[in-house]
């Protein structure tokens, strides 16, 4: 294992300490329990937006704490859900009297820990609502599985929901909006290489030089199928097709096209994928009116990408364009 770390046991804590030192203008960081909170929280009268999940997906979620996006993030161990005590601490810190919305990626551990945290917060009289993001079309939804994973759409949901909270929309309104985003967006990812969790010390799975994994999640878990390596244009087709058909998009629909890097793929390559994805969208009559390209929800050093499409409305577009000032996303200010 070749990593810029000191010791596997110290990775999350030391990274968080560096994050706190670098971005004290935007966030307050507590270490025990670990929370990242917007520097001016709680904002009186504003719904607090809280998310969290395992570490290793940076800039998600801590990098999206700040004006116009998240009020707090709870970082867990690498690829491991954070714990209810962290979530409760963060909930208290961001409750400005208008309640708190939890944005939860659909993973068994995240759901259970957030469920326990919302019980604890309600016991303290804080109004809490939860929205589960499950946008990954690679997983067939069924009563007999954990359901679809929460992946790329989480980034867009946090941005749009955060903007709505900034406009002082109510907790039920903000929660309904987040559910709308989840209903109108889908994603699918792929990997060229595996990734190495520091305390494991070797790659999560072996991927030969001439093969790639389609339908990957964000935790190094292998995807649905393995195929021979193909050019970027063919990969863009493999990802776009299931996303478009699952969303049931119609010619003339406005969409946001998001090409996400998994951590180890350069922007040069992401733009090659974007180029083809935009061409496919146009060929299907879609109007790509907003776009996002870059590593926003990653899987450590994994090489690969995911594609997310979000069907836009005028409201969603305006909220997307609204000012945001976070470590990972910043515009309009």
């Amino acid at each position, binding site marked *: 294992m070749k990593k810029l770390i000191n010791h596997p046991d110290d990775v999350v804590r030391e990274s968080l300490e560096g994050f706190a030192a670098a971005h004290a203008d935007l966030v307050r960081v507590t270490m025990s329990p670990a929370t990242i909170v917007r520097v001016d929280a709680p904002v009186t009268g504003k719904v607090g937006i809280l998310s969290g999940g395992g570490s290793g997906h940076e800039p998600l979620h801590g990098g999206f704490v700040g004006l116009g996006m998240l009020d707090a993030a709870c970082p867990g161990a690498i690829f491991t859900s954070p714990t209810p005590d962290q979530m409760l601490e963060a909930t208290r810190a961001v409750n400005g009297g208008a309640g708190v919305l939890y944005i939860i990626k659909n993973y068994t551990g995240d759901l259970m*820990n957030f469920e326990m945290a919302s019980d604890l917060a309600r016991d303290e009289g804080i109004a809490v609502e939860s929205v589960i993001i499950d946008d990954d079309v690679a997983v067939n939804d069924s009563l007999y599985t954990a359901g679809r994973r929460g992946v790329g759409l989480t980034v867009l949901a946090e941005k749009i929901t955060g903007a709505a909270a900034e406009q002082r929309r109510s907790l039920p309104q903000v929660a309904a909006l987040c559910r709308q985003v989840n209903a109108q967006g889908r994603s699918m990812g792929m990997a060229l290489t595996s990734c190495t969790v520091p305390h494991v010390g070797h790659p*999560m799975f072996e991927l030969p030089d001439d093969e790639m994994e389609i339908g990957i*999640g964000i935790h190094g878990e292998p995807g649905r199928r393995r195929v021979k390596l193909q050019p970027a244009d063919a990969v863009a087709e493999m990802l776009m097709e299931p996303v478009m058909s699952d969303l049931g998009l119609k010619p003339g629909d406005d969409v946001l096209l998001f090409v996400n890097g998994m951590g180890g793929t350069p922007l040069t390559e992401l733009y090659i994928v974007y180029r083809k994805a935009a061409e496919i969208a146009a060929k299907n009559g879609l109007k790509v009116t907003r776009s996002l390209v870059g590593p926003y929800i990653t899987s450590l050093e994994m090489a690969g990408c995911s594609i997310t499409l979000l069907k836009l409305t005028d409201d969603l577009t305006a909220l997307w364009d609204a000012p945001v000032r976070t470590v990972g996303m910043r515009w309009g200010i």
Partner: protein
Amino acid sequence: MSNTVITLDEVVAWILAYARAISENRAMLTELDAAIGDGDHGANMDRGFKAVSAKLQAGGTDISQVLKTTGMTLLSTVGGASGPLYSTIFLQAAQACAGKTQLTLQDWIVMMDAAAKAVVARGKAAAGDKTMLDALIPAVQALKDAAVAGLSLADALRASAKAAEDGMEATLPLIARKGRASYLGERSAGHIDPGATSTYLLFKTAAAALAQPQVQARKW
């Protein structure tokens, strides 16, 4: 003659023995999880039970309190799905034995039955989903069967460990329907479930640490 009751000292010894077993098997649990999950089960459980061990070094004053301390510590240190689920086992067991200074086989059955039911409710899983329940449910059933058959406490604990082991091994061909392994679909078959493995270790250490004749002898 083996002992007919479980004492406070034995409950503490059991939890400490389980913490050692998790530590010794950390790499194995991580390997099992890397095959079908995300490779964090060994590290997460070890982090949690190291924290539990530190809290229990001084022993305890009350069986229910020891179990509750264990559950609360796991809840704030483990994370993932294992944190809430293992926390639930200990918190439910604590509730079910409140006020008792020693535990009979019947007490133990009530505690483990409550724990298993709560894990089902929290995880929304069932037997055969390739989860820790595939070891937990048979272990509890074996305790009940042992009581009906009139076995001693020690024999009942051994029977539950054996049932948990068989249940763990039976997860090998199963296709996962819960947790991260379920994303793999058919590719999850051919691997033993890591959660069922750590649950087997829980019952294995219970059989070794609880109802020991020498502990009773020391009291005399």
